[in-house]
């Protein structure tokens, strides 16, 4: 079997290999059709990818479909928009929770982006003693399970007798957002040519001018994707918020949690639809950064 295979290929391959490469002299580039010889659209890996994506979307589709259901349960009784009506007009608690979530997401993402981006610049471009320490430190919160971060913060705040509420949620969210912003901006800086900074300095720019006119514009895409990532994660977080929230600081995930404990709720179906649509919109707006985001998460 094995000896026959190469022999079969030799029937047509020599003609291709004998052809001298066209264009400038360099490594011989295998034609694209040749590279993708074993690459069929319906290969095993493609089928797996489609199956996994269907698996990922199937539950969301079910929930979205039933958000248009006329009745309460999961038995289809007809099309209706009443749950959207109830979501947008009859759910004041939910929107207050959403407001809290939004305030925390914006503020914590902003602070995390400023602090994290500065640190990325400092660590990527300068050498100093505690560099490795900060780098390792920034890595751990990302990998530690959320329960641990939540519990340790709860115990910390109660040890220093700090009242739980919006402020503690803000602190917790900034803490878990920092590493992601730091990583995304670092990834962007790795692609950046350091000599541009030296050129700016040589041409007489001050440190501050270099920062504002050279560094900031070049790292803006990384910073923006970090900010976006931080907002998404802050809006998403349930476990950590669960521990550090106090009376009157219910966020959207906490509110959803209190609702789904009582079983299927058509208003949550409608809310899911709204959230999924907005995430699709964000993904569309930031499609340029999806590869960077994939590399860092």
């Amino acid at each position, binding site marked *: 079997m094995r000896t026959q295979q190469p022999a079969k290929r030799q029937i047509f391959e020599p003609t291709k290999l004998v052809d001298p490469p066209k264009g400038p002299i360099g490594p011989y580039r295998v034609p694209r059709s040749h590279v993708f010889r074993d690459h069929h659209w319906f290969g095993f890996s493609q089928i797996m*990818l489609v199956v996994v994506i269907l698996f990922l979307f199937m539950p969301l589709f079910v929930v979205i479909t039933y958000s248009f259901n006329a009745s309460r349960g999961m038995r289809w009784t007809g099309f209706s928009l009443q749950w959207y009506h109830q979501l947008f007009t009859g759910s004041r608690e939910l929107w207050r929770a959403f407001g809290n979530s939004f305030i925390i997401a914006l503020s914590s993402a902003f602070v995390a982006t400023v602090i994290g981006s500065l640190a990325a610049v400092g660590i990527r471009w300068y050498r100093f003693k505690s560099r490795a320490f900060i780098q390792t430190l920034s890595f751990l919160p990302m*990998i530690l399970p959320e329960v641990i971060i939540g519990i340790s913060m709860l115990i910390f705040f109660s040890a220093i007798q700090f009242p739980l509420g919006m402020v503690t949620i803000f602190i917790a969210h900034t803490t878990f957002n920092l590493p992601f912003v730091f990583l995304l901006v670092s990834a962007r800086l790795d692609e950046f040519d350091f000599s541009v900074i030296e050129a700016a300095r040589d041409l007489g720019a001050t440190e501050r001018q270099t920062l504002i006119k050279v560094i900031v514009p070049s790292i803006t895409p990384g910073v923006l994707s970090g900010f976006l990532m931080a907002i998404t994660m802050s809006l998403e977080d349930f476990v950590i918020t669960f521990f550090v929230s106090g009376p009157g600081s219910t966020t959207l995930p906490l509110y959803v949690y209190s609702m789904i404990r009582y079983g299927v709720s058509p208003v949550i179906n409608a809310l899911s639809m709204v959230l999924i649509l907005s995430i699709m919109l964000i993904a569309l707006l930031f499609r340029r950064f999806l590869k960077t985001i994939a590399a860092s998460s």
Partner: protein
Amino acid sequence: MKSHEQERRNRRLGVTYSAPMGLWLVLFFLIPLAIIILYSFLRKGLYGGVEPHWSLAAYEQMFNPNFLRVLFRTLWISVVATAITIILALPCGYAIARSRNQVFWLALVIIPFWTNSLIRIYAWIAILSNEGFVNEALRSVGIIRDSLQLMYHQGTVITVLIYMYIPFAILPLFTTIDKFDFQLLEAARDIGATKAQSIFKVLIPNIRSGVVTAVIFTFIPIFGAYTVPLLVGGKDSYMVGNIIVDQVTKTRNWPLASAFSLLITLVSTVGVVWMLVSSAGERARLKTSGNGRGTAEVNS
């Protein structure tokens, strides 16, 4: 003279830029962790909190057979769920990396991943619960009259955990496979390797660091899972994360919760070190081999 001055300037600027993050993480991450370590060696207070007396009671309680059973169950669930996740994620990462429309497929992975985790768990409840989608559908067709008990099994917990964490595995796998030189697979095939051989002997060894990252990024969050077993699991899927939360909020045994947290932290740290060592090893290998690729070994 000048370079010396510049070095000092570099050091000063580096410290200035990164000090806020360093301080923030020390204050709100490292110190809370230190407090947990401290608390695990103290005696429990009557109404939560601790009393300032050294005690190893928390660690003795950890070896209670009930807790040990939960610990082994957590380990079992994490290993099974991680293994299935990686097996499913590998071909996905490969297919996305080889696709000409990478961003489209990445978006399809990232959109569910960004969707609120509670909403995703809720979607499974809506599908699997007694009045859920599956049961209602089967009832309306007339196959069943009573509801099938689809929730509160260990299998359900494992399925939902895979669902929650598979993007964590696909994304790093994609990133590493994307950097892989696919011509190596061609070369392996040309010198007589079968398709399976070229995958297992050429592709996998070359993307080892990505596989390790994917394993760590799925295993550790699953090992510390709390919401999934709480909402879709039953008695046979109570995990360490649930113990920790119950010890803090219900039983009010903070030292014991701290001891379990410390255990998960240690497991996670070992994982992170493994990951860093493996990616450092790969970087060193890339440096020594001239074309930036490892040597492809294929048996003929």
